[in-house]
């Protein structure tokens, strides 16, 4: 005896089955839209920019003549910017995460801090730019410096780092902490010697992803008023500077067609930096991921 009479099923369900097939195809097409978009974007930028992308481009300053234009000041400037953003945002973010996960009691103040962090993550980056312009540039008098831009960027990516670190800390099993207390360790000793070492891969992964967002972020720099055409490199944190996305923004706005190619070459540099950082993050995640 056959349990399923396929001809009967096919006869009665053929419409519904073919609807299923058609919709599956539609869903596959929808998924491939994202893939096609990415392929078009990368293909377009590579084909446009590759002819301008050479050593001369990497080692020259900005210029009014497209052939001579280079990205040196922006590349070095972005590195300076990261040397502020990385320590400030990681120290503040990890400290906040440790506080919220290990010390904070369930009360209204701490609930408010948590809610505040999730809301801060949804504030548009240009609004952070207005904050930086008012507080760091004008009130503190840092002017359009690496320090002012770096602090603004740090606050922008702070919520991302906090959330990533919180998740990493939460993933450390309770038993490990209890074992540490059982050995007579104090709370802070437990955090520093047991919890943090176990959480560091997760914290690093999240931090690198957040930093790569900061490298590509343009709007706050525009609002702060970071200049573009610079013929010198910064020598201190109070010097002004330019950064990769600012330089690309400037080239993209220019009407001459040649600058479109220069902008593409700049984007290639930016994307190489970002993809390198993302692969490092993925590498750390895969290498050190522990399941308890």
């Amino acid at each position: 005896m056959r349990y399923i009479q396929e001809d009967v099923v096919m006869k009665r369900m053929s419409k519904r089955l073919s609807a299923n097939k058609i919709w599956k195809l539609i869903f596959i097409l929808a998924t491939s839209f994202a893939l096609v978009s990415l392929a078009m974007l990368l293909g377009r930028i590579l084909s446009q920019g590759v002819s301008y992308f050479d050593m001369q481009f990497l080692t020259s300053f900005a210029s009014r003549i497209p052939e001579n234009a280079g990205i040196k000041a922006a590349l070095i400037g972005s590195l300076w910017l990261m040397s502020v953003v990385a320590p400030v945002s990681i120290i503040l973010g990890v400290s906040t995460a440790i506080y919220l996960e290990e010390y904070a009691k369930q009360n209204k103040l701490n609930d408010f801090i948590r809610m505040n962090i999730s809301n801060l993550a949804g504030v548009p980056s240009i609004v952070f730019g207005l904050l930086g312009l008012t507080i760091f540039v004008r009130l503190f008098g840092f002017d359009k410096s690496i320090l002012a831009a770096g602090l603004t960027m740090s606050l922008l990516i702070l919520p991302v780092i906090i959330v990533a670190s919180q998740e990493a800390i939460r993933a450390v099993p309770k038993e490990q902490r209890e074992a540490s207390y059982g050995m007579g360790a104090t709370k802070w000793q437990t955090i520093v010697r047991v919890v943090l070492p176990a959480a560091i891969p997760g914290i690093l992964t999240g931090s690198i992803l957040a930093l790569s967002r900061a490298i590509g972020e343009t709007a706050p720099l525009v609002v702060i008023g970071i200049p573009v055409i610079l013929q010198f490199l910064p020598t201190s944190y109070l010097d002004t500077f330019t950064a990769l996305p600012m330089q690309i923004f400037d080239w993209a706005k220019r009407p001459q067609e040649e600058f479109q190619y220069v902008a593409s070459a700049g984007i290639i540099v930016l994307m190489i930096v970002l993809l390198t950082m993302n692969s490092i993050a993925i590498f750390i995640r895969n290498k050190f991921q522990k399941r308890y």
Partner: protein
Amino acid sequence: MTLKQQERQSVQHLIEQARNRKGKKFIEKCVPVLLFLAATISVLTTFGIVFTLIFETIEFFTRVSITDYLFGKEWLPFSGKEPLYGILPLILGTLKVTAIAIVVAVPFGLGAAIYLSEYASEGVRKVVKPILEVLAGVPTIVYGFFALSFITPLLQVIIPNLKIFNAISPGIVVGVMILPMITSMSEDAMSSVPRSIREGALGLGATKFEVAVKVVLPAALSGIVASVVLGISRAIGETMIVSLAGGSTPKFDFGFTDSIQTMTAYIVQVTTGDAGYGTTIYYSIYAVGFTLFIFTLTMNLLATYISKRFREEY
């Protein structure tokens, strides 16, 4: 004294010693305070944002009447004689871009989410998810350049009267930008619908499509709606795509082919030019920024509310 007593005493002695060690005690008391101070930075940031926006906006409204600002249909801050500050054209420009972005991102994002959570094999998911992550990590300045130098010329072939700066091209690209977020949040919501519910429906003879649309979608609806609302919030606050490809012509009309200006693009326009400190134009960027902040905050709170209030518990 027996050996046992000696042992017990020495352990107690050690505990006693540990308790009395002063340095340790000091650290144990100091650290929570320092960590708490770090945690307050994020709160201070919010206060900083709200207060700077409010104070500078109040300064703006001592110069421009608030009703003119809220209901004015003309935004002409640079006209020397009689500048007009009516926010409606900027809001309309923002909404035009957002509307197109949603039209692009919701069907494609949801389609991809349904495919990934209901149809796709583990292998396909392993390929598609990292690609979505790359797409989410592309800086907006790159998207903006892509919109201006590639999508606009492409669209001009299809729509002959399309201007170089318009609402459609940045709208589409903003849609591509928020698509990964909508896909991954919706996919999370749909994946958390338990297998047993799906199997129940499949056992009754439903096809996979019927399970997806009639069982999984309704069950995951709150998460999906929250993802769309967050997408809208992102689209409203997006800056570089619209300021590169949208233009700088704030107009109160309902066409999509002409140059527009969004709230964010106006702030960029003023800050890249040299608006002197203390001028009305300088203060106007804070009023626009404040308006933008209200819009996105409302959306974010709404998304949180929806995902909390309507969450299904299994």
